[in-house]
């Protein structure tokens, strides 16, 4: 039988079983249920995208995993530990949805506060905070109060605070909200760095296209219920349909190809010019501006 530490080291990064969670409101703390019987597992080193419309319970689910929100029923484990235990929270990082960081503090002082709460030793905190502010492009604003930051800058600060402790599990709620093109690049770099380190990622967004390229798996949350969960490719694939991207054919050959497909028993559902990704567009615009 394996010893306890062995069991913990083999435990999934995140494990939810029949999770029900509710908010308490008013003087008598009445319950308002938000998550209903959610079961989900994220293996170590993988990246899971949590998608769903606004109000589906994504943020609540992340709060439960971060130990911020209580659980009414069910089991929640982060690296085999209950997230209500400080030990589990020491190994995770969380980016909340609205960047509610202390607005009166400078970026540097706010990282000192957040790092101190995380228990990071002072010297290491100072070094790591400096490097992260540099990485997210806020080194010049390190002494400026957070209340003077734009939404995108606050998001970058949020990313810096999330990666302050080199966490094993990263929970990011709407990480791309408000980010500009360089901000996307910052996020990409931080995610890549975390994945290279073997960290497990859970990214929540109501815009799945933001996340697809990073996520091994996708989970769909609707009205607090987990409606679908599986590998991203499988989940988004439509049976019997293939997407084909062509280059170098004029209108004539394309017309012939369409006729051939029809004769072979298939159907061309749509034909449109292939689009570049938003990131590529941002990068190109940035480049043009630099040249100008």
């Amino acid at each position, binding site marked *: 039988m394996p010893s306890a530490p062995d069991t913990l080291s083999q435990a999934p990064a995140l494990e939810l079983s029949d999770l029900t969670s509710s908010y*308490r409101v*008013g*003087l008598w*703390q009445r319950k308002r249920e938000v998550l209903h019987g959610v079961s989900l597992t994220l293996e170590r080193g993988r990246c899971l995208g949590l998608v769903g419309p606004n109000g589906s319970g994504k943020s609540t689910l992340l*709060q439960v995993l*971060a*130990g*911020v929100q*209580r659980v009414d029923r069910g089991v929640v484990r982060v690296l085999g530990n209950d997230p209500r*235990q*400080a*030990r*589990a*929270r*020491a*190994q*995770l*990082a*969380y980016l*909340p949805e*609205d960047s*509610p*960081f*202390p607005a*009166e*503090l400078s970026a540097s002082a706010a990282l*000192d*506060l*957040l790092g*101190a*709460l*995380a*228990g*990071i*030793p002072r010297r290491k905190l100072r070094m790591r905070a400096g490097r992260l502010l540099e990485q997210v492009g806020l080194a010049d604003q390190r002494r400026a109060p957070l209340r003077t930051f734009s939404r995108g800058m606050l998001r970058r600060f949020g990313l810096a*605070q999330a990666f302050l*402790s*080199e966490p094993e599990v990263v929970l990011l709620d709407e990480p791309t909200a408000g980010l500009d093109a360089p901000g996307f690049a910052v996020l990409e770099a931080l995610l890549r760095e975390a994945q290279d380190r073997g960290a497990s990622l859970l990214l929540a967004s109501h815009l799945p296209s933001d996340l697809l390229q990073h996520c091994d798996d996708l989970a769909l949350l609707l009205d607090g219920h987990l409606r679908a969960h599986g590998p991203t490719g499988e989940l988004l694939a439509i049976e019997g349909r293939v997407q084909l991207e062509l280059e170098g054919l004029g209108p004539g050959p394309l017309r012939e190809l369409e006729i051939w497909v029809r004769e072979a028993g298939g159907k061309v559902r749509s034909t449109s010019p292939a689009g570049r990704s938003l990131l590529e567009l941002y990068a190109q615009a940035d480049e043009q501006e630099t040249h100008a």
Partner: protein
Amino acid sequence: MPRGDGQGRYGELFRLWMRRSLAPSWTLSLLGLLALLSLADWTPSALQAGGMSTPHLARGLERQALWSVALLLLSAWTAWHGARIVWRWREGEWSWIASRPVSPFRVWVATWAGASAGLGLLLLALGVVVEVGVGLGAKTLQMAGTQPVDYARLEPGQSMEIAWRGSTPTEGYVRVFLRSSLGWDPTTDVRLEARRGKRVEHIQLRLDARQGVEVKVPTQSTRPRPLTLTLTNTGGGALALDGGTPMEWWRPAGYEWLGSCSVIWRAFLGLSALLGLAMGLGGRMSAASAAGLTGALLLTATTGDLGLRLPWIPCADLPAVLAILGEGRLPMSCHLLLPLVSVALGAGAWWLAGRVR
């Protein structure tokens, strides 16, 4: 990596809330207002016209007025400030606090202690402004003890004895509150005598309303002897001993400015408890409701004679202390239980806050 035991450090959180209690716009407005008010003359015109105003009394009245305004504003602000702490948490701050390896109770204590420390610094700054405005003053008397008395009515020629129980006054003055009975002639003469062994001190005066009458305590002989007061109605009208106010012993003590120190310490303990209470209530209702309810509880604690009967209740004795300051004198040391009660209320409000956190 974070520390193995997963416990964060709370000093920065303490500093954050201390800083928030000292928001520059609020702090400077309050200090400026008090500095302006200190330029005014706070001695009632009736006292000035009657020639009863002395520099000692004028300083006392000004000190009382300035502290009354300051504490009124500060207590209202404290209730609102405390109630908004958990509101801020609910609005999102709890997400970056609770996702760290911290103990929620220690977070509560660090937040409460930091906000209270800010209040303490603000009170100290207010004290400096008050004393600069008033002037530090001369040596004065401090209340050293009280003893409840029963209501009694003395017809002309009647007298009564009151023995001082407990620790016997050794020096200074003893004061009793008397009232001449209403009638067509509401004046009478009274003689108050203090006796300790063979030594006797007395005072004789005409009384025409409710008035505190003071007699010097005979100096202590080598062996402590009990102190007995004899009250005699030597006039033509009726006389009543006011049982609603206890008999007081005043002894020579420090300087007048120590009165501000006493207010600062009491207000610090009281407002810290109030802050904790508002924080706790803020966990169960909106910030406005929590601030309102905290204010109502404060009013309940500071009106009536609660401060006399239960001086360990935070803020309860502040009105009486301010009244003593108005006489240019110093209040008694605060009740020994008051610091404990304040800490218990501030930290214990964690449980009151419920599961919102």
